[in-house]
């Protein structure tokens, strides 16, 4: 199954992320020049929290920060489908 998914950011930017490459959503956003928020890049500070308005993500590292419904932590997840996020 293809691991290449579309990520729509703030309803405007659209980027393509290959989840099999091991890059996190945060890294994908950075590569697209979107300057996402981050601190620890390790799933425990919660600074990279973004709203996940459509689609699903998979966590490649177990996050320690509480993930409120409708949010995801960009530093430790990859898309599991086409997704839409607000940051």
């Amino acid at each position, binding site marked *: 199954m293809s691991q290449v998914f579309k990520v729509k950011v703030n309803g405007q930017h659209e980027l393509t992320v290959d989840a099999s490459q091991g890059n996190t959503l945060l890294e994908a956003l950075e590569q697209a020049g979107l300057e996402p*928020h981050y601190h*620890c*890049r390790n799933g425990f500070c919660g600074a990279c929290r973004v709203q996940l308005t459509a689609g699903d993500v998979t966590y490649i590292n177990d996050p*320690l920060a*509480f993930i409120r419904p409708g949010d995801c932590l960009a530093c430790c997840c990859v898309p599991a489908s086409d997704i839409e996020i607000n940051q």
Partner: protein
Amino acid sequence: MSYSTFNKNQINPLKEPMFFGNSVNVARYDQQKHSVFEKLIEKQISFFWRPEEVDVSRDRVDFQALTESEKHIFISNLKYQTLLDSVQGRSPNIALLPIVSIPELETWIETWSFFETIHSRSYTHILRNLFTDPSEVFEDIVINEEIQKRANDISKYYDDLIFYTQLWQTHGEGEWEVDGAKHIVNMRELKKKLFLCINSVNALEAVRFYVSFACTFAFAERDLMEGNSKIIRLIARDENLHLVSTQQIINLWQYGQDDPEMKEIAEELREEALQIFMNAVEQEKQWAHYLFRNGSMIGLNEEMLCQYVEYIANMRMEAIGFDAPFKQRSNPLPWMNKYLVSDNVQVAPQEAEITSYLVGQIDSEVSASDLGDFEL
């Protein structure tokens, strides 16, 4: 009611709320109600460090070369952080251990407080290096008005919870008179005090450290006081973890994943919790004003610091379900991030890249092919 260090009743910790249930008896972690606290313990312990491992000897030379206003900024921040960690090194233990009801959270609280004591010891390590006799700096912490203003807000919710818990544990629920003042003690009141206390601690861990962190890292950006900055990076990494734990507690309550009464209280006291946070933000801005009253430092001024406080506060408040109250959505001090990335934290001078100690690490998986070219 009265606290027992080993509750003899058979209890099922999986059915206990985080606080104000039966007191914990067996410290067991094979089954967990909220497994995140066990993960936090593991993470925190993997972060173990000792202040003495960080060489701060060059800082003394750097410090002598700072301007008077820069010295004021540097020392005042250390005083404030010393206050914060003095409180945090004891208060979670004293306030929360008597009322905690699940073993993984009990052990997290102890681990958390222990790390705050490492922070306290590291301030002495830094100051002993800068001054032959650092007493004057420490003594000023209980005299300095600016620090006193903050100390009151930081400790009052803890003190209130501790006092009411003591009344409850010695006298039970009811109306009690102590030193001429009447106190109504019932479970609802106790839980309200707990809720406000955790919100106050959360605000402390969320924003109160960041003005001083920013100043420290601004010095480091100029290659000044680098030993101090290495220590503060380790402290910042720990504080992030502590913050996550208070955010977890607040969210577990809000989403009804723990004590249902705490969910009601979270809704009832939402405005008060918001006010606690906003007061902390306001106090930090005033602190920035106090720091820069004699002049600013290269790369940082009062306005930028206040913007950073707002930026951080937005992020932290959204994490516990408040709307971001400030306009500052972009990071005004982008260089801060490189000091806050956990993978860049230098644990010891010779270890530039690893995040955590791996003590006694042994590769226990050996296959026959690993010995393939081994001949007798």
